[in-house]
């Protein structure tokens, strides 16, 4: 009897041991499987991830967003030099929309079936591509979203969301610092983007600014002397030159200096450009001009304090020495960085749905200081900003003095849609 019990016990032990052993083996196998790369979704193989990108390279304004394509490519090459993401190389399939709405839509359509996600696109007509993303809600579109339609994409993610409206933090700062000047505002804005000015003006007026003079400037205009004489006579003290390109800002500042028009404050958001001091015959004409921006001084001034700026400069030079780093290159670099952050969070074998979930989960992205922190997942604009000024042919940080961003005051004027 005792022998029988012993045999049963022994048999039970053997079975248990076998079960435990088998389970352990299965677990180990599963773990190994988890560490192995698989073709987990469209555009992914065990060794590479293919990503789409639609940029304006040709057409009526050739090379418009050439910098953007270079910025994304430079970041991917940098990541690939480190071995890629989970040992997968990032490969970019780039398309040109030739500044054409239909072409933007069809190029996006062409890529959407073969790429894992879209990263670093830059196009005036991203509202046309937005239609394709609306039909493919599982495909992430990570880029600086320009149009309202693109901003409304549920699967669209920008390193710095910019919903219709305008940030009011800098305007509050100017109001505190120059309380009299903000009651005498003049503006020459680009006729091609009246909406931006409308939002900006509403933001200013919501804080009590008084607009004395405003006029839309067409791209073919070459002389603004009449406007300058008029603003001078009206007593304009706060000249808002936001919403103009760098060459127009340079020309307008030169004409203002020529006519001895020296308002107390001149602000812009486009002079921070590598070619600016070449564009302005006498750089001192731009002395004191202020620029508030939600990103670092990516042209190189912040390289010492913000390693990401140095990295950006190095890899742009290494991979696209013929392209001058510009705002578009910087934003596309940041978009690529945002994508890589989300891709890592989506696991070893990511899926399109997993990537979107990971992007939605990013609530403070700053690309290691390259851009001001923004809640990407909730599509909230950055609350912080920095201020720089022109000083004898150089861009100089004003606020904060050494590095980073100021978040006081902060705010955003949301336009009624």
């Amino acid at each position: 009897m005792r022998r029988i019990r012993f045999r049963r016990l022994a048999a039970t032990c053997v079975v248990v041991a076998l079960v435990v052993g088998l389970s352990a083996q299965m677990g180990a196998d599963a773990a190994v499987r988890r560490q192995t790369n698989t073709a987990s979704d469209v555009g992914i193989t065990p060794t590479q991830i293919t990503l789409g990108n639609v940029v304006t390279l040709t057409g009526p304004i050739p090379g418009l967003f050439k910098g953007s394509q270079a910025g994304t490519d430079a970041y991917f090459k940098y990541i690939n030099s480190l071995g890629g993401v989970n040992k997968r190389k990032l490969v970019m399939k780039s398309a040109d929309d030739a500044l054409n709405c239909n072409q933007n839509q069809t190029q996006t359509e062409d890529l959407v079936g073969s790429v894992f996600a879209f990263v670093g696109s830059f196009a005036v007509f991203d509202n046309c591509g937005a239609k394709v993303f609306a039909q493919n809600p599982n495909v992430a579109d990570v880029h600086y979203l320009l149009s309202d339609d693109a901003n409304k994409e549920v699967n669209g993610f920008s390193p710095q969301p910019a919903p219709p409206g305008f940030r009011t933090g800098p305007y509050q700062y100017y109001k505190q610092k120059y309380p009299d000047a903000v009651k005498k505002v003049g503006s020459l804005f680009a006729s091609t983007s009246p909406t931006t000015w409308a939002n900006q003006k509403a933001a200013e007026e919501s804080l009590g600014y008084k607009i004395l003079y405003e006029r839309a400037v067409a791209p073919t205009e070459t002389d603004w002397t009449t406007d300058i004489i008029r603003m001078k006579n009206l007593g304009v003290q706060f000249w808002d030159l936001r919403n103009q390109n760098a060459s127009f800002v340079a020309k307008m500042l030169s004409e203002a200096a020529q006519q001895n028009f020296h308002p107390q404050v001149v602000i812009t958001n486009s002079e921070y450009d590598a070619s600016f001091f070449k564009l302005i015959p006498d750089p001192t004409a731009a002395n004191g001009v202020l620029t508030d921006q939600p990103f670092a001084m990516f042209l190189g001034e912040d390289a010492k304090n913000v390693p990401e700026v140095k990295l950006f400069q190095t890899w742009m030079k290494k991979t696209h020495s013929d392209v001058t780093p510009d705002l578009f290159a910087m934003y596309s670099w940041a978009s690529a960085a945002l994508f890589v952050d989300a891709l890592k969070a989506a696991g070893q074998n990511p899926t399109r749905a997993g990537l979107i979930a990971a992007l939605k989960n990013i609530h403070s992205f700053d690309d290691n200081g390259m851009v001001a922190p923004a809640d990407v997942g909730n599509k909230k604009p950055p609350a912080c900003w920095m201020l720089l000024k022109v000083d004898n042919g150089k861009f100089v940080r004003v606020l904060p003095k050494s590095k980073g961003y100021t978040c006081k005051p902060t705010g955003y004027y949301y336009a009624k849609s």
Partner: protein
Amino acid sequence: MNQFLAYTVVGVVAGCIYAITAAGLVVTYTTTGIFNFAHGAVGMVSAFAYWQLSSADAIGPLSFHLSQPVAALVVIFVMAPLFGAAVEWVLMRPLRGASLDVTLTVTLGLLLLLLGLAVVLWDPTKPRIIYPFFRGASVTIFGVVVTEHQLVVVAAAAAVAIFLRLFLYRTRTGTALRAVVDNPELTALAGASPERFGQLGWAIGSMLAALAGVLLAAIVSPLDATTLTLLVINGFAAAMVGRLRNLPLTFIGGIALGLTEAYLVGYLPVGAFLSQVKPTVPMVFLFIVLIILPERRIAGRTVSPRAPRVAGLWESLIAGGVLVGLALVIGPTLSKSNLQTASHGVVLGVIMLSLVLLVGYGGQVSLCQMTFAGLGAFAMGQVANGASWWGVLAAVGLAAVVGAIIALPALRLRGLYLALATLAFAQAMDTGFFLNEHTFGISGSLNVGRVQLPGISLDSDQTFFVFLTVIFALVAIGLLALRRGSYGRRLRALADSPAASATVGMNLTATKLTVFAISAGLAGLGGALYGQQQGLVGEPDFQLLLSLTLVLLAVVWGIRTMTGMLVAGLLFAFFPVIQSHFPALRDLLYLGTGLAAIGIGRNPNGIFGGNTPLQRRRDKRAAQAAAASIVVASSDDQSEAARAAR
């Protein structure tokens, strides 16, 4: 008062820029009889050549790093005249005696070709800086600081006006130059060579374009090909004040335009209107000048190319059926993106059909069809949330009404003047209407939905593609029916000889008004379809340069043919796809269209315009039959005469 004087100084300086650009146009017209739409483009290329010769940043051919004055002299007195002479020899000489449509197409083609070439040769992403002459030096006049470079512009404009007036009217060469335009045969009998003087005229015109380009370079800097080219269009108004002949009046026109701009910007109340006014002024000025110019007599017979045979009802019905059948067969084989692009092409084809009626049949030049299409798209998007048949009706109605309104002042214009008036309208609408934030909404684009047919959903791209080809076929069949009828014969008569048409009692006013209205309505229908196909529309869809490209492609492929319009539309739509295979060419649309358009001189009917071997054989047989009947008739007459004599 000080303010008024200040604005006056600003206006005079700006006016001199207009005057100097207009002077070149006037000289070319006076000495060659051709209005050179490419004048601005020649100036633009000269400005780039000036940079290439003088800038320290220039690399590659011709980067000699010359001083700015030396480079300016080389461009103005060596390169530009050589270029002008070459253009005359290669392009213009074969066009002697050609109709206005042909010369207009060739010069517009040259404009696009030079624009396309400029962006290939000079990478537009690199800023090209030109500094003004006497950098930093200035004088103060009535409280306004004027740079010495601006004074050079003023002096150059005055000198050009005086010198050229004396040259053209007080020298034998100048008189011969003008005589060649008035009557080349008679001038040749007097011993002058029309070819040589024609070439001299083009050389002088190019020199003036180069002078304008060099002087404007520092004002526009960094150089931009489109801005430099379009700046000269503003000078058209000044040239028209001088009726393209009178240089002093042209100068006065330039100054008047500059002053009008300065006073309006200086005195209008701040607000939305002020914003629209400055870029619109030159075009409104041009429109008004064209309307109030002393009336010209009604044009007599014009030389127009032989019209292709008009298809009969059954033939057009069968062709339409074949087209729809092809769409049904080919559609499913196309990728989604190619299907969308093909649909886009068919829509552009519908817009181009509006040109068949107006330009092809009626002989009325229009450079603003995309503007009418834009009005149609706007109406479609605004009515009933943009997806209603009421929207389509509104699109056609709005465009037709505006077309008729535009036709009213243009009734007494034809040819070049009509072309310029429609160009002015297109540019003014772009800056004054399409760019207005209230037109396409706060986001700059207007959503347009698709209409639905009873029992058939047009949501699928495949079905919509077939629907579009049905619309294209119906419009084409309708146009051919119109052409075969009495209205079509009236249009043909209007195109061939307005004077003769008026003599036989034809109501020119009614015919012109209706053809403008119907054509604009068709373009409006095209615009409504454009919006539905694309899903949204905005200002960039309806710019002036697109209208020009559309007209040129239509002429190149045969502006009286339905097949030509379909092919042209499809090519226009597929250009960006082709472009993506040739990124180095940067702007294939302008390059390709320009190149094709300047070849139109050798084939005025266009590619599908009646030069197929079959049509040539038919024409030959018809000509032989006509000749035989004339011989028979003549012999009958002789017999009759002989009988009578007996």
